[in-house]
């Protein structure tokens, strides 16, 4: 090496050993460096050229994002196509805090253009406290066209404020149908775990009534949009689009006009009424008073509102027609009569003497008429609603037989109605009593004979039982008439089989109920009507909610009208019409209405007249082809883009 480098001679002083070793080692270092860089170059070649395709695919996935589009919820219609629940387009002003420098300043400027009230400010503030990054916060919804123009014009001064479109569930009839249609509310985590679509913004889930039971039908299918996004999810361009599918429409059996009529008959009493089509079980109207406004649930109910509802002893949130459980009182007597006829413990000619009271096993049971009815057969017993007759009949028949007949009639069983919180009522049996470690007394059977004691039914069960007795068909009440414009088979009278009770027994009871209303001195004379020759048959019922002591009753000063409201007896009435060709069955209960004959019977008559006038069942035969699509106005958005 020495010889190869000519200037070496100039540096005789240098440490040749060190220099030689250094050169050798520097070459080694350089070789290592070159080697490492070459390795890196070959790795680069592998990544970019050999595996390139694989990574190009991953890159595509990286910047193409699939986003689901929320489907609009299906509508709920009445039997004539009137919209009962709909979606309304909702233009909203939103703010994205990350895109503004000074949020308070922007909101200040915004409020100069669009007025925000204190409620809005409170909501915005609470949204800010729980905001996730880049999730817009709503400033104001239901913007008018003018307001939108004002915002658009001033948009340069309002960085971070965007207008987007959503939908809100609208109930045009508000509290008139609240218990049937139900309401929707924002989904919670549990709902989302069950149905992923609900995680999409703006989705609502049914929380009560039809909205809840028909959730699967109403919900719809999510659409999909493919967009190019950057790493924080900002949309750059849209690549593809599949529209969401709106949920199917659900058409109810309800006639909204009849519902209005029935509701106005009940006025503001705490009451419930059910109108059934006897022939096929369609619920024509179902009213529970008082009611509430279901729209309040869409954006969340305030605490004070909730408290008011909860403290109201007339319980506005409860659908009394299916969730109210009442002692049926004398309206139960036809069922007992049928049970006895079926069991053969009486015949139509069996006579029982009423002396005003009935003594059994040391207890005395009173008839409502303390002077007694004398000797009565079944017809008379129903007509006068004699208690003693049915005490004796019940004792003879026994609770098991009564229970079996009631089951056929729809009492004390869970009816398959498409609603939530449906109660099954109760027809007690000794076996049931024993599960609670109590002994069944004959006295319990005796009071059950007049629909008191443990017996409890719902207004819907009463209407169903009336309809079954009227037609002899095993109809079940239902609320859904069409799904997605297709008529369901249950709407046809042919769908329903015959009741497993001998027709002549039913006829005996029906004629008794006819006598109640139409014969001289019948207990339900006040319900008598003659609508174009169509007559009504029914049965009254006054159900005690508090027992009356013997001393008080015998003092002769007892008058239930003097009791506090919540201890007064319920007033009930069941009826069907026309008598010779039953079409409609109605059950009415006025909570603590005191006297059935004077309170419930006239109401039932008015309702029946209203029903026969409208005759909503007529469109069963000649399918009113009202074009549902013509109602598809701008209220329903075809789809909704998700930001």
């Amino acid at each position, binding site marked *: 090496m020495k010889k190869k480098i000519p200037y070496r001679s100039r540096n005789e002083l240098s*440490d040749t050993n060190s220099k030689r070793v250094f050169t050798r080692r520097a070459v080694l270092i350089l070789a290592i460096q070159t080697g490492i860089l070459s390795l890196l170059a070959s790795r680069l070649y592998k990544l970019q050229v050999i595996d*390139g395709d694989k990574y190009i695919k*991953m890159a595509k996935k990286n910047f193409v994002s699939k986003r689901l589009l929320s489907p609009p919820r299906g509508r709920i219609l009445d039997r004539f196509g009137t919209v009962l629940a709909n979606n309304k387009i909702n233009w909203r002003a939103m703010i994205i805090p990350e895109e503004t420098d000074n949020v308070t300043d922007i909101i200040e400027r915004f409020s100069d253009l669009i007025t925000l009230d204190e409620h809005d400010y409170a909501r915005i503030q609470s949204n800010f406290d729980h905001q996730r990054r880049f999730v817009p916060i709503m400033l104001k919804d239901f913007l008018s066209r003018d307001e939108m123009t004002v915002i658009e014009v001033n948009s340069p001064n309002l960085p971070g404020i965007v207008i987007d479109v959503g939908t809100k569930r609208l109930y045009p009839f508000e509290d008139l149908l609240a218990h049937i249609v139900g309401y929707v509310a924002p989904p919670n985590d549990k709902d989302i775990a069950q149905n992923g679509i609900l995680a999409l913004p703006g989705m609502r889930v049914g929380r009560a009534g039809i909205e809840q039971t028909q959730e699967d039908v109403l919900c719809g299918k999510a659409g999909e949009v493919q967009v190019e996004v950057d790493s924080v999810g900002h949309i750059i361009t849209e690549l593809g689009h599949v529209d969401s599918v709106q949920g199917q429409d659900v058409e109810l059996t309800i006639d909204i006009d009849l519902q209005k009529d029935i509701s106005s008959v009940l006025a503001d009493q705490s009451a419930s009424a059910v109108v059934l089509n006897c022939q096929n079980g369609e619920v024509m109207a179902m009213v529970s008073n008082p009611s509430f406004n279901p729209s309040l649930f869409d954006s969340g109910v305030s605490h004070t509102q909730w408290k008011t509802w909860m403290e109201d002893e007339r319980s506005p949130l409860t659908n009394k027609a299916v969730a109210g459980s009442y002692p049926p009182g004398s309206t139960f007597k036809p069922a007992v009569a049928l049970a006895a006829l079926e069991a053969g413990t009486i015949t139509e000619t069996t006579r029982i003497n009423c002396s005003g009271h009935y003594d059994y096993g040391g207890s005395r049971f009173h008839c409502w008429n303390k002077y007694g009815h004398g000797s009565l057969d079944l017809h008379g017993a129903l007509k006068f609603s004699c208690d003693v007759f049915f005490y004796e009949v019940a004792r003879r028949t026994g609770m098991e037989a009564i229970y079996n007949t009631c089951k056929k009639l729809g009492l004390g069983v869970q009816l398959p109605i498409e609603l939530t919180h449906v109660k099954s009522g109760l027809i007690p049996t000794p076996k049931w009593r024993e599960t609670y470690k109590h002994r069944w007394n004959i006295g319990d059977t005796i009071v059950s004979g007049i629909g008191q004691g443990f017996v409890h039914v719902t207004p819907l069960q009463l209407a169903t039982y009336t309809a079954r007795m009227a037609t002899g068909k095993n109809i079940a009440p239902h609320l859904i008439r069409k799904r997605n414009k297709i008529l369901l088979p249950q709407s046809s009278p042919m769908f329903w089989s015959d009741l497993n009770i001998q027709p002549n027994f039913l006829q005996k009871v029906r004629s008794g109920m006819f006598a109640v209303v139409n014969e001289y001195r019948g207990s339900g004379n006040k319900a008598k009507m003659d609508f174009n020759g169509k007559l009504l048959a029914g049965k009254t019922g006054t159900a005690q909610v508090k027992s009356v002591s013997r001393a008080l009753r015998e003092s002769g000063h007892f008058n239930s009208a003097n009791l506090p409201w919540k201890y007064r007896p319920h007033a009930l009435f069941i009826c069907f019409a026309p008598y010779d060709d039953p079409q409609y069955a109605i059950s009415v209960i006025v909570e603590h209405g005191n006297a059935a004959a004077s309170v419930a019977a006239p109401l039932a008559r008015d309702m029946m007249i209203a029903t026969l006038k409208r005759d909503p069942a007529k469109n069963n035969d000649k399918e009113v082809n009202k074009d549902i699509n013509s109602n598809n106005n701008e209220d329903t958005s075809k789809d909704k883009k998700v930001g």
Partner: protein
Amino acid sequence: MVFEKRLLRPEPNFKILNKLQRINWLYVGLVCLLAMIGYFAQYSAGGGSSYPFAYPQLIKFCVGFVIMIGVALLPPQILVKLAWPLYGLAILLLLAVLHMGHVGKGAERWIIIGGIVIQPSELMKISLVLLLSSWFYKMNWQQMGNPLRLVIPAILVLIPVMLVLKEPNLGTALIIGFIGATIFFAAGMRWYLILLVLVPVPFLFKIVYNHLHDYQKARITTFLHPENDPLGAGYNIIQSKIALGSGGMWGQGYLHGTQGQLNFLPEKQTDFIFTMIAEEWGFTGGICVIGLLLLIVVGGMIISMRSCNQFGRLLGVGITMNFFFYCAVNLSMVMGAIPVGGVPLPMVSYGGSALLTVMFGFGLLISVQVHRNSIFGEEIAKKKK
């Protein structure tokens, strides 16, 4: 032979103009070319705009260029005198950064003095090279053979290594250690000693790993299994590989790299600048950059080998090694070959502190080149013999 003629010119006391003439402008040109690539990459990282990266980087480069040429004119006599003060300053700054440094990604690394962001560990690397060179040039071959004489320089290396470890910045601590070791090796440390030191290294690694911070352990585990945590700690590695891969042979075109321009690529203007270049220019662009880096490294090694004095040789090798480590670690990191560790690509990545220290280093290297015929220090070594 042009070089020969230049070499035979009279050695000492030549004027500034003379020195400027002796600078190997070809080498300076290579450095400037690298800076130019950096400028264009920063322009792309800014989304096709001079701001916020490209223009400020250009200003810093101009400042760095003046420093580089200025340092290049300093003779070794002066550089030796600078060694201790610089080392002391770097140690002080390291201590300062430990107590009031700014935390970035779980590690304290930088400090702001008078509005300038300083990363003391960058300065430390250069001043350590300078100090070790000025320590070893006085030692001749025989003295290098005495292990006891290597104890003090070893301590000089270990002090900054420990301080940087405490920051805690494992990557930089290892690089400082390696640079120190390279100079020991180049200065003529005996092979048996080298082996003696190397044997316990695996055990040392084991101990160090046990003392690693959680975020550092996470880096190592995600490096080994990046797919386990694609949106978390493994995100950087996966996104970098995707960007490189989608570049292909010829690239997606300048300013059109999807991953980089859509911000999927993390820290694309600093650590992952090479990824962005390779995505936009493809393998062709990537191999050109690597080629340029290799040229600069080879040039640096040639400069050191051709120096007539031990000080210049060691200084040159140290500086070149420093530059090489930056490049190798950064490239391995973005290609997913080693755990990600916040090491920039010199001259190309955005950031003033690294740029200025690297250019200061090039200044030293060019000074070695300019003063290669100086027989500075050789008599000392000779006398001691």
